[in-house]
C-alpha cells in the first residue's frame, strides 16, 4: 500500500501494463516527450520509446480510427484525447466504428482499445476544457464507459479496461488529478467493469454519483450526518454496463434516491439511472427520484463567478439530500 495521487495511479498503471503486455501502445497529442498536458504519460516515452508511445498529429478522428485498425491487427492501443471536449471529431469513429465492429462482423472482429480523456469542470477550463461527455457514449451499445473516482479504483479499473476485449472510454476528472490521493495496493488487483461501490453506507437517502461528484456526495453525506440524516452513497464507477443491482438494492432499502452529475441535467447520464429506479424500484420509493446536475447552458463558463454558479457543489447536494429526506 502506498498513497498516490489520482494521476500517479494512472501513470503508473499505464507503465505497469505496458511492461506486462508488449502489445499495448499509447498514442495521442503530446503524450511523448512532454508526457501529456497533465503528465499522465510522463516517463512512458523514455521507457518504451517512439514505437510504443506515439505523439500524433492534431487529429482526433485519426487517433481513434488508427487505434481501431491497430487493435484489429493485434495491438491494444490506449489512446489519449487531450481533453474530453476534443473527442467529438472522433465521434463517428467511436460510435459508428469501434462500437459496432464486433456486432456488424458477427464476432469476426473485435476492437480491444481504451480511449482515455480528462473531463470535467471547476478548473477554469471554460466551455471547451470542462465538459462532461459521458452521456454521449453511455447510450451506445458496444462501448463501455468507466469513470473512476479514487486512485485505487483508477488503477483497478484501468487494468480491467486495458485487458478488456472491447472498446472502453475511460474518463478522468481533471480536477482530481492532483487533489485526490489515496492508498493503492502494490498488487496486480483488478476491479471488474460493471461493479458499483457503496462508498458510504446509510439508511435514509441513496445518493448516486461518479467521478468528482462521488467525492462531493461523500462530503455532503458527512455534512448532513450531523443533522441526523443517514445517507448511502453509491459510486457507480462503470457507467456502461451499469451495476443496476447495487443501485436498486440501495434505493429499495432507503426508499429515496438522489442522482448527482456534473453535466447539464436534460438528457444527462443520470436521467437513465432515474428512469431505471422509477421503473424498477417504484414500490419502494418514499419520495420522487430527484437529480442535481449542471444548468442548461452549453458549457461551463470561464469567469470564476460563472463557473461557481455552474458547478454542482457539496452544498447543493446537501440541500438536495435535506429536501428529499424531508419529503
Amino acid at each position: 500500500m502506498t498513497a498516490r495521487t489520482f494521476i500517479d495511479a494512472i501513470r503508473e498503471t499505464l507503465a505497469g501494463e505496458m511492461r506486462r503486455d508488449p502489445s499495448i501502445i499509447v498514442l495521442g497529442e503530446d503524450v511523448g516527450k512532454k508526457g501529456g498536458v497533465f503528465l499522465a504519460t510522463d516517463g512512458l516515452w523514455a521507457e518504451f520509446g517512439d514505437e510504443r508511445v506515439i505523439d500524433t498529429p492534431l487529429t482526433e478522428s485519426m487517433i481513434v480510427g488508427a487505434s481501431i485498425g491497430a487493435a484489429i491487427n493485434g495491438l491494444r492501443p490506449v489512446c489519449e484525447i487531450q481533453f474530453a471536449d476534443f473527442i467529438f471529431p472522433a465521434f463517428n469513429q467511436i460510435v459508428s466504428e469501434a462500437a459496432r465492429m464486433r456486432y456488424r462482423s458477427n464476432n469476426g472482429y473485435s476492437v480491444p482499445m481504451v480511449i482515455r480523456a480528462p473531463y470535467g469542470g471547476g478548473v477554469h477550463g471554460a466551455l471547451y476544457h470542462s465538459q462532461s461527455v459521458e452521456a454521449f457514449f453511455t447510450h451506445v451499445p458496444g462501448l463501455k464507459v468507466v469513470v473512476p473516482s479514487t486512485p485505487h479504483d483508477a488503477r483497478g479499473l484501468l487494468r480491467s479496461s486495458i485487458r478488456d476485449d472491447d472498446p472502453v472510454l475511460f474518463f478522468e476528472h481533471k480536477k482530481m488529478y492532483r487533489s485526490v490521493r489515496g492508498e493503492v495496493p502494490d498488487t496486480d488487483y483488478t476491479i471488474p467493469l460493471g461493479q458499483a461501490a457503496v462508498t458510504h453506507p446509510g439508511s435514509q437517502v441513496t445518493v448516486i454519483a461518479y467521478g468528482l461528484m462521488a467525492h462531493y456526495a461523500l462530503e455532503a453525506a458527512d455534512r448532513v450526518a450531523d443533522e441526523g440524516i443517514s445517507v448511502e452513497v453509491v459510486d457507480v464507477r462503470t457507467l456502461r454496463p451499469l451495476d443496476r443491482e447495487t443501485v436498486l438494492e440501495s434505493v429499495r432499502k432507503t426508499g429515496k434516491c438522489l442522482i448527482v452529475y456534473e453535466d447539464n441535467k436534460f438528457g444527462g447520464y443520470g436521467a437513465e439511472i432515474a428512469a431505471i429506479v422509477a421503473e424498477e424500484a417504484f414500490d419502494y420509493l418514499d419520495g420522487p427520484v430527484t437529480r442535481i446536475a449542471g444548468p442548461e447552458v452549453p458549457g461551463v463558463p470561464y469567469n470564476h463567478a460563472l463557473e461557481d454558479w455552474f458547478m454542482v457543489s457539496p452544498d447543493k447536494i446537501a440541500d438536495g439530500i435535506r429536501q428529499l429526506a424531508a419529503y
Partner: protein
Amino acid sequence: MTDRTGKQGSLAASVGLYDDDLVQMYRYVALARALDERMWILNRAGRIPFVISGQGHEGAQVGITWPLERHQDWIAPFYRSIATCLTFGMEARDILTAQYATALDPSSGGRQMPGHYGSHEHNIVSVSSPVATQLLHAVGIALAAKIRGTGQVALTTMGEGSSNQGDVHEGLNFAAIHKLPFVFVVENNGYAISVPAARQLAVADVADRAAGYGIPGVIVDGSDVLACYAASREAIERARSGDGPTLIEAKVTRLTAHSSDDQQTKYRSAEELAAERERDPLPLFRSQLEEAGVLTEEIATRLAAEIKLAVDDATDVAEAQVDPDPATAMRFVYAEDDGR
C-alpha cells in the same frame, strides 16, 4: 500468387507474371461480373431487396489486389469491392449469401446490408456504411504491422467522392509521417451517386493530393487490368520495403446506377452512358488476352462453364440458407467471455 511457374508468353512476361496468372485474373473479373449480373436479376425477380454493384470496377480491383499476399496482407474494402474480395479469397457463395443476409453469411451473419463484405479468415475488414472510415482502420493495421514487424501491407479502397472526407486527410498524413506499409486506392468512377466529379473536387485527379503528404500519387487506367497490377505491385513493394504509402487512382467507370435504389438517367445522359460502355474492363481484358494467345477458345469456354456453375451454385446455396434466428440478435455486442 506470383510464384507460379509454367508458360510465360510475352504479355505475361512484360508484367512479370505467368500466363496462368493472367487466366486466373481474367477468371476473377468475369466471375465478379457474372455474380453482379445475377444480383440484379435476383433483385428484379424480387428475391433480394437491394443491390450495390461493382460493374466497371472489376478490372482495377483484380489487378490491384493480385500482388497482395493472401492471409498475410490486409484489405479494408468498400461496397463495390466484389472482385477485390473474390481475388483476396472470398467465394462466390460468400458474395451471394451476403445478398440474402442469411445466417451463414460470413460477412455479417445477415446483420448488414448487401455490399458490406468482410472476412476475418481472409484479413478483409468488415465494411461499414459511413464512407472513408475504413482508411483509418487500414492505416492502423499498417501501424500495427510496422510495430509488430509482421511484414504485412494494408490496402484500402474507396470512391473519389469518399476521398473528400476529413478522415482521408488525417489518415494519409499519419501514414506518410510514419512511412507505414499502406496503399490507398481510389476507384474514381466520376460520380458520387448523382454528383459529378467536377462538383466533388476542384482538381481532375485525386492523385494530385498525394504530393501534399509527400507520397507518390499514381494515375492508372482502371480498365487496363495489367496496368493496375503493375501500379499496385510497385506500391506494395514500396510499402513492404519501408518506403511508405502510395496513392493509386484508378479511373474506372460505373456501368450501373449507384444502386438498385437509384435512377441514373435523371442525371446522366444516354450518350454519356453509351460512351462509358467502351471502358468496360471485361471485354477489353478478354480481347487483350485473346490477342496475346493466352485466353484460347478452349480456356474461355471452360471458364465460362465454371463461372456459370459457381454462380448457379452460389445462388442455390444462398436461396436455401435460413434466416438468422432472432434469439441470436443480442449476441456479439461484446465479447462472450466464457470464464474469463
